[in-house]
């Protein structure tokens, strides 16, 4: 069977998801028996125009160049898979979408006119057809390898949107929300991380993005019951996946209930 030709593109990101390749350890050599990486700047391969079977896109679209490169990648590849929070929902840098971005740039950079960015940080699917998404900040090696394996078997992985709680319970971890009143996002967050945060005795902050049917409204109310102020609840949803519609909705809902804000609104 011919090897799978793969290109790895990075748009605006922290480079953490690409490490799912470089952090494989010795089994990377096994993986390379099956795939031919033809473009991977960090790995020293520069062939942006090569046509490939699979393009993995890390990062969000935040500049006109990002957009161009994405369109290029799309037209050069049979399958396009976005990897990581930036690519699937805009990522952490999408927090700026909620603010006045121009004022921000001015504050950090004395000469903002040198810097060319689009107004928002947006996910890949906002600009191009996406064949599959690997959620997670960062994605895990298992997610990536499973994708590649399933492609080798002639199919795509099952898109598992199950809730983190299921994984947490399977690992027989003790629920931190019930024992510690920790405002855990597990019940609205996608599985796949290994339920890491609860394992460390802390609340999930949703880095794998919204799960299937997230009942954020009920969870937010529960957070209020645990003593969180509306603004704090809003902040829980405004973390790594602030621009995913489900979390965004909760952010705005709770932010609007912040007494300070509504004071300002009245004025």
């Amino acid at each position: 069977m011919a090897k799978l030709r793969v290109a790895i593109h990075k748009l605006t990101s922290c480079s953490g998801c690409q490490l799912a390749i470089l952090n494989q350890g010795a089994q990377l050599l096994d993986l390379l028996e099956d795939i031919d990486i033809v473009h991977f700047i960090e790995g020293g391969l520069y062939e942006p125009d090569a046509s490939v079977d699979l393009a993995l896109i890390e990062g969000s679209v935040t500049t006109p160049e990002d957009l161009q490169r994405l369109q290029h990648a799309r037209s050069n590849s049979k399958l396009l898979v976005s990897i990581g929070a930036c690519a699937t929902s805009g990522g952490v840098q999408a927090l700026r979408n909620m603010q006045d971005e121009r004022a921000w740039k001015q504050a950090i950079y004395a000469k903002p006119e040198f810097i060319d960015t689009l107004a928002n940080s947006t996910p890949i699917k906002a600009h191009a057809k996406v064949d599959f998404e690997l959620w997670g900040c960062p994605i895990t090696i298992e997610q990536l390898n499973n994708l590649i394996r399933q492609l080798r078997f002639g199919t795509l992985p099952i898109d598992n949107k199950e809730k983190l709680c299921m994984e947490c319970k399977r690992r027989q971890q003790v629920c931190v929300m019930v024992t510690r009143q920790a405002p855990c996002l597990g019940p609205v967050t996608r599985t796949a991380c290994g339920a890491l945060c609860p394992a460390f005795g802390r609340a999930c902050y949703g880095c794998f993005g919204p799960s299937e049917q997230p009942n954020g409204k009920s969870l937010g109310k529960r957070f209020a019951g645990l003593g969180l102020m509306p603004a704090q609840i809003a902040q829980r949803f405004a973390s790594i996946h602030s621009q995913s519609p489900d979390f965004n909705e909760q952010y705005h809902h709770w932010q609007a209930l912040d007494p300070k804000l509504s004071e300002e609104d009245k004025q």
Partner: protein
Amino acid sequence: MTQHFLPKQQLQLLIDCLRAEGYGVIGPKVKDDAIVFEELADATELPYGIEEDSAPGRYQLKKARHKRAFAFNTGPQGLKPFLFAPEQELWRAEHTDDGLIFRQSFPAIRPLAFIGLRACDLAALALQDKHFAEGPYPDPSYQAKRQQLFIVAVNCSRSASTCFCVSTGDGPSAESGFDLCLDELDRGYLINVGSDKGQRIADKLGLEAASGAKRAVATRQHQRAVQQQERQMPDEKTLMTLVDKLDDQRWQDIAERCLACGNCTSVCPTCFCSKQESHSDIKGQASSQVRLWDSCFSEQHSYIVGKVIRNEISQRYRQWVLHKLANWQLQYGRSGCVGCGRCIAWCPVAIDLVEEARALCLGDKP
């Protein structure tokens, strides 16, 4: 039924005897803010002087004034994960020179003795037996593990606020299903023998007969635990009326609160749903078929091509309650709820199964 007495200091002797018989001994310990069942090195690891304070959506351990080892009622899990593992390889497929071959996988099985299980855990075990071991397709690894099991039950001397086993008829004292059963008193344990295996261990312990006074204390403890229970699940006949309430508005009300997270089904000692996944190695040479705990609250549970049959949270909660409390009776001859209260304590948004069942069946207005 003759009862024996084991002085408090000699609990270690029981553990030693079990170990000498070849059992790994599993008992309650405090870990990550809860009572969990784990391998015990010795009796000092038991949760002396610990009780739980549980309420809908809350579980906290607190120090009590006494120094008893079994004053708690339940932890997040009982026996279920040991017999029906949350994740288990069923078989492996391999590409070999002889073509595709399949090999059954057997988990390493060793005899285990559990100390500290409750009446509700035993009732749940009986139900899991019916599902996994007694049907037309018995689960071989469940059966194998089950046969090796030795059970030292403990009768509850108090009830947590989430307990309601009295109303389901499953507790607070164990009547059968154990090898040995303890009543914990301040100075030691009354021991009741429930099987030949149990008798063999009891003989080795060289026990004295329990005095009438001690037995009276145990009876009082039992009565106290009964009286402490405030929650009451409707009786089975009443629960059967749920099947006529498919259109009740209440399902919608619950769905507004329910996260469909599956925590209730995961902690429930009788829930048995599972799903399977194929995990291939990186070379695509071998693949293992893995069975994982699943829940009727997940979307995939009722998925068929083109649709999700129970697409709404209200329908999933309805499935859970309808199955657990009513249809279970038709499948296994009794309700699937043993009154342990785990689903109430471990529901992140504090949904109370008893309250919902009463509202639905009896029109109670909580």
